[in-house]
């Protein structure tokens, strides 16, 4: 009745082989035919932390749109994490069809370090530097603003504790640093020495350097550490409304930086998955009025002017410097400020006394 021992082993080997190969075969099948209408298709969007809520709301709308246009079902999978970490994952082989990261530097890193995945001039492929939404850096302070913080100059006063993550590990923190630098430079009539002095004094007031933006928000909101949190505008709104309703105020400084989180198709992966068309449509959809409306509702600044006007009350106008205008682009800024031995390292170069 029972098969010979050799037989069972052979059967078992076959079964194991089939089990191992099945997913490969399956994925090969779905990939080859995925651009055909009527077939289900899957898209992987690799993003950074604070966009969780935004894409949760955007994705179902795009799904409906795409179904209407092509009759095809599209499932969008999301991956969130620190922007730099996500870029590294894509470089190391995470099969992202599109990336929506915190700064262009991280996408540049993919273009340079993962050859063939996307062209170096990727940022020119979509309007507004491939950034369908913008944000800026604002201050979150405790209710009633007990320390009287109204602008950057108030952050360097003695006794004011500032919470901001480490720009060496957090993309968002780099925007914070550069915004402070831009203010320091403007306040000292364009002097880089003045800017360095200002930023150094500011970081002397930082009691905790978290490794990411969400960690810094937790330190400020949950642990009650610090008097002011430097945060993405959208994170500040989220913290005010959802994490601690009524416990915080948002202060918009006189000058800040225009943060443009870029989006792009990872051509190499999309071609291999047969998702090039839908990936492109997905990103273009972000520029439509419908998506722009959702973007504004999630506290990102829309780039569509009619929508921006509609939500003008939510987004106070302020003097916004740009990364290209004030710092000559990300590559230059990264090298000057955040690389080893750069400006940020020199602030901490000596073990300084004090606290």
């Amino acid at each position: 009745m029972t098969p010979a021992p050799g037989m069972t082993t052979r059967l078992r080997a076959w079964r194991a082989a089939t089990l191992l190969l099945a997913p490969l075969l399956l994925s090969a099948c779905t990939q080859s035919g995925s651009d055909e209408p009527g077939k289900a298709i899957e898209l992987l969007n690799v993003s950074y932390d604070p966009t969780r809520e935004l894409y949760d709301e955007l994705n179902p709308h795009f799904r409906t749109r795409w179904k209407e246009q092509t009759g095809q079902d599209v499932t969008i999978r999301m991956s969130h994490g620190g922007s730099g970490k996500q870029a590294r994952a894509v470089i190391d082989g995470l099969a992202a069809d599109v990336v929506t990261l915190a700064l262009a530097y991280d996408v540049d890193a993919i273009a340079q370090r993962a050859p063939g995945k996307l062209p170096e001039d990727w940022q020119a492929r979509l309007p507004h530097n491939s950034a369908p939404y913008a944000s800026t850096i604002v201050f979150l302070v405790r209710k009633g603003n007990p320390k009287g913080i109204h602008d950057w100059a108030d952050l360097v006063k003695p006794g004011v504790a500032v919470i901001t993550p480490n720009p060496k590990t957090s993309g968002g923190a780099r925007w914070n640093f550069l915004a402070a630098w831009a203010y320091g430079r403007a306040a000292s009539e364009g002097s880089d020495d003045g800017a360095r002095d200002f930023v150094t004094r500011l970081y002397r007031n930082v009691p905790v350097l978290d490794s990411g933006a969400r960690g810094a928000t937790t330190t400020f909101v949950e642990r009650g550490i610090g008097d002011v949190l430097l945060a993405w505008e959208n994170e500040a709104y989220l913290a005010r409304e959802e994490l601690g309703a009524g416990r915080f105020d948002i202060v918009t400084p006189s000058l800040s930086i225009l943060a443009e989180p870029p989006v792009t198709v990872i051509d190499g992966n999309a071609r291999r998955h047969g998702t090039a068309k839908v990936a492109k449509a997905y990103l273009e959809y972000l520029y439509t009025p419908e998506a722009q409306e959702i973007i504004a509702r999630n506290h990102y600044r829309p780039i569509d002017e009619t929508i921006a006007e509609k939500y003008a009350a939510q987004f106070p106008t302020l003097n916004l410097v740009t990364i290209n205008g004030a710092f000559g682009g990300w590559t230059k800024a990264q090298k000057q400020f955040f690389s080893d031995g750069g400006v940020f390292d020199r602030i901490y170069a000596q073990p300084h006394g004090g606290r």
Partner: protein
Amino acid sequence: MITSAVLDFNAEPAPGRTDNAGPRKYRRRTSVLPGFGLTMGLTLTWLCLIVLIPLSTVFVASHAMGWEGFVRVAFSERALATYRISFATSFVAATVNALFGMLTAWVLVRYAFPGRRIVNALVDLPFALPTAVAGIALTAIYAGNGWIGQFAEPLGLSLAYNPAGITLALIFIGLPFIVRAVEPVLEDFDREIEEAALTLGARPAQVFLRIILPELMPALLTGFALAFARGLGEYGSVIFIAGNMPFKSEIAPLLIVTHLEQYDYAGASAIATVMLVAAFAMLLVINLIQAWSRRRSMR
């Protein structure tokens, strides 16, 4: 259980046990698994795939930057500061754990009390918990506005966002190593020797120091080494409670991550190499001490 496997690795047949089953006989015993050649081959292949090859890439990656670059990154002032902090906090945490871990093991083995099984399970919790959860939970309790932190702060004791916080996190994750290392030895301990010593007029302190402690020493050292090594590599729980200030509370694993965030794989590997070599050297030393203490106790 994980720990017992780790222990077997260190344990040559205990002196008391080899008397009736000589080493030769021990080795020739037939096994339920196929022969020595096959199992050994599989073991080595497996260890290569899981441990040796991945770790060797660390050396390969740091090799790319050349000797000079390696020294510049791996022994920069900032890196040296992180090693100091990592090694000092791991050492203190492992020492505290050795003390309280031994006490815990003692209570668990020597006394029957209601809820003993629950306490026993609690000891293993740090193994199972994601370390980030531990970090967040510890910070919530020991930060200035936390349950315990609020009482410590007025006394001038700041328990979070400084090396004390790092040590706390490392004590938490290192606890099971000591308890699980010491427990089986205590269980096997021949109480008659103790009783004999007492009837011969030894004071309790003498019994502990001269009879029990020497017997526990190898297990204690094993647990200490494991907790220490685990502390060196710990990242998840520490970054939440450390404050991460350069030169003050920045741990070496964070500096590795910092380099990775700059796409500096070589620099990250350079620091990792130093950690790896240091941890390995330390385990070696502990193993030697253990062998020595075992020889001593066999006298």
